[in-house]
């Protein structure tokens, strides 16, 4: 059983997924399932508020890559904010910053979304 939790809200057309806990395979799959579900109902812009996620693993982040891939198919967009320094560094090393956007705060993210 995963301790990973999510809270989903929306600001205008942007779906905001707030995460809490370890982003491992189960956490990544939870985020993926939410995005796929929302995409099916027409959402195209997604932001992850990672304030409550201080650790990740590459399997969980690989599932986020799958979300990016799905969003590319529908010209959608994914971004992240409130990232712990090591989470941000991990996303950079894995190259996610080339295909999605990293922001310091929700305000800055929403300005560009």
């Amino acid at each position, binding site marked *: 059983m995963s301790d990973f939790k999510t809270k989903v809200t929306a600001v205008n057309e942007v779906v905001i997924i707030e995460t809490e806990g*370890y982003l*491992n395979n189960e956490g990544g799959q939870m985020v993926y399932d939410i995005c796929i579900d929302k995409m099916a109902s027409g959402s195209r812009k997604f932001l992850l508020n990672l304030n409550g996620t201080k*650790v*990740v*693993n*590459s*399997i969980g*982040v*690989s*599932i986020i*890559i*799958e979300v*990016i*891939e799905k969003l*590319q198919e529908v010209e959608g967009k994914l971004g992240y904010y409130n990232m*712990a*320094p*090591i989470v941000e*560094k*991990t996303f950079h*090393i*894995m*190259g*996610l910053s*080339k*295909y999605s956007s990293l922001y310091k705060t929700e305000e800055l993210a929403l300005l560009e979304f």
Partner: protein
Amino acid sequence: MNSPTVELKLPILPNMELVATQTADIIAKHMHLSEDQSGEITMALIETCINAFEHSKAGNNIFIHFIIEESSLVIKVIDQGIGFDKSKVAIPKIENKIGKDERKRGWGLQLIQALMDSVEFESTDSGTTVTMTKNK
């Protein structure tokens, strides 16, 4: 005199890598490592443990030695798995994964090497030892 060493024995169970990271966090504080250094050790340790779990047979354990040296922290992660040939592990690139059939996983070694100051692998068909060093 031998360097102070903390030893852990982890069963192959979900999320056991977090037991290792909590230990590493306490040791990093003891050594006055920075938050960034501590985070890098955490991430590298998670990836090394996951690899060790995946290469191990069910019922085995993995062993972690944290060796506290004057100017560095040396971490050895030892598994009794099937071993692997590092030269056959391709360096992943996201360009080759997005929109392609290539599996999205396979980032562990790249992350470990990017986050630690040095990494050495010794692998045979009876197990692998990964030795990682973070300098103070």
